[in-house]
């Protein structure tokens, strides 16, 4: 009886997330843009803009993004580019300096003394030098479209908008199985989740890169919090709690170099999971109590904050199911209840269920990508381990009082130049 009572909340949680993903998928499929939540058309609004590029030991990729910054179509007199060399020990600083000589609007901030303390600290340092009304952030391994600044800036014509986020697409997708699966995750996450959240006026998430803020807002919030591992999620909720909104621009696309191996995937996702859980502990209660947010924003925000706990819940539900099976003689109702919920768990995953990814791939006209969808169950099982480890690490650090989290940097090999050249050719043709 007690086990049944404990099991029911697990089923309810899973079904809630399932319903959420189902709604997102339907919205992405059938929502007709226009009347309720229009996308501003690119116009004459061209405020001054500062682009922050934090870089630590990125010699293999930094030249690519700096070259792209020079090629941006945004008016040069309104554009400031700040590269933050975060105590790099390779040739990152030399390469950045060389580009700064070529481009007047580019500044390189060298952090030899207090560098290497993570992305948030580097961004805060860059913010001190920024003069633009709008602050954009790009990671060093990213490669944006030439008109991305125009596409994103146009959202700021609405004074209620505090931040914008663009779409991230995997550039090195064909390289390995991991990059292909990450590409599928990205399709589900951006093409469906973020788009639906934007359409439904919920809480589109700022992803830490390919996005921007109003400078006065980020300054009033005190910049990026260096104690948070997921500074992007943290900032997302601080923006909403401050009374501003975030918009997602699906047409503002930027290409990223995804992690190529399971080990790198593990390190990156462990950081994301731990950071997200940190944010859940920090923001869940203020979010519920906030009087400015609408109920649907609170519900979506709460579900978003707690999404990294779901793989752990699924694992626990499986364990509980096993105990129930071994200790109880199952009645007909329970017998139906357990397989139903487990079937739902098995077929939906956590971050993006297979049908959501499938529809995203269909909308993107990615017919081959659909064929890899069954392998998402591998990612789901892997994420169960990742999230459990992240949760245990977080608990240990809370108990031991050691809140200084080690920032594990994701390494990039830059081996996608040939695809970048293809994109350049496409640009030229356009």
């Amino acid at each position, binding site marked *: 009886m007690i086990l049944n009572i404990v099991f029911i909340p697990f089923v309810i949680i899973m079904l809630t997330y399932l319903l959420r993903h189902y709604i997102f998928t339907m919205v992405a499929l059938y929502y007709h843009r226009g009347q309720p939540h229009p996308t501003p058309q690119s116009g004459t609004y061209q405020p001054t803009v500062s682009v922050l590029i934090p870089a630590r030991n990125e010699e293999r990729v930094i030249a690519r993004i700096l070259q792209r910054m020079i090629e941006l179509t945004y008016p040069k007199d309104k554009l400031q580019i700040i590269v933050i060399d975060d105590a790099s020990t390779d040739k990152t600083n030399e390469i950045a300096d060389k580009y700064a000589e070529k481009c007047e609007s580019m500044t390189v901030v060298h952090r030899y003394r207090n560098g290497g303390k993570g992305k948030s600290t580097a961004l805060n340092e860059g913010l001190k030098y920024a003069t633009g009304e709008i602050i954009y952030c790009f990671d060093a391994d990213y490669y944006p479209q030439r008109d991305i600044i125009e596409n994103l800036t146009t959202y700021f014509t609405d004074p209620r908008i505090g931040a914008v986020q663009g779409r991230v697409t995997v550039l090195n997708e064909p390289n390995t199985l991991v990059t292909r699966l990450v590409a599928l995750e990205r399709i589900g996450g951006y093409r469906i989740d973020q788009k639906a959240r934007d359409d439904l006026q919920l809480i589109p998430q700022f992803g830490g890169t390919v996005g921007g803020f109003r400078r006065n807002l980020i300054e009033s919030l005190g910049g990026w919090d260096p104690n948070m591992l997921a500074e992007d999620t943290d900032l997302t909720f601080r923006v909403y709690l401050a009374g501003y909104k975030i918009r997602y621009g699906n047409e503002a696309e930027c290409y990223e170099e995804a992690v190529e191996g399971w080990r790198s995937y593990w390190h990156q996702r462990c950081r994301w999971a731990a950071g997200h859980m940190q944010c859940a502990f920090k923001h869940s209660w203020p979010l519920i109590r906030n009087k400015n947010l609408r109920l649907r924003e609170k519900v979506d925000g709460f579900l978003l904050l707690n999404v990294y706990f779901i793989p752990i819940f699924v694992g626990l539900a499986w364990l509980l199911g096993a105990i129930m099976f071994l200790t109880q003689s199952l009645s007909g109702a329970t017998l139906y209840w357990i*397989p139903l919920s487990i079937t739902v768990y098995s077929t939906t995953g956590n971050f993006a269920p*297979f049908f959501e990814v499938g529809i995203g791939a269909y909308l993107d006209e990615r017919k081959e990508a659909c064929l890899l969808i069954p392998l998402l169950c591998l990612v789901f099982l892997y994420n169960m381990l990742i999230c459990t480890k992240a949760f245990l690490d977080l608990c240990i650090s809370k108990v031991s009082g050691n809140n200084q989290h080690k920032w594990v940097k994701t390494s990039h090999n830059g081996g996608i130049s040939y695809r970048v050249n293809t994109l350049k050719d496409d640009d030229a043709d356009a």
Partner: protein
Amino acid sequence: MLIGAAFTIFCFYIFTHLLEGPALVTILVFNLLSIILTFPLKGPLWCKLTWLGMGNCVGIMWNLVRFSLITVTTGIKPEASTLVNFFLGPATDFIWLVPVWALGLSTLSSLEHRKRR
């Protein structure tokens, strides 16, 4: 969508005599996903109906094979067999459900792409 729903109700009526609980649930999940998410997409109706029918056939075949295995293993080691079936059943259902659905979607996408070109 209405045609798909009618097809599913018909299949469900027949399958209730053939299959038991969890197997029926899995086929129902497949049919619901196909009707609600695939049928409203652009693409020929014959393709959608073919994949819906094919999914149901694969589901039945899959479950018949599974039941045969269960029957054999139950005779050898009853408790272990029930336990393994109980826990691995839903996971193995994933093996037919998701690929068939994904293949259907991929075919539909290819046909649409070709038509547009």
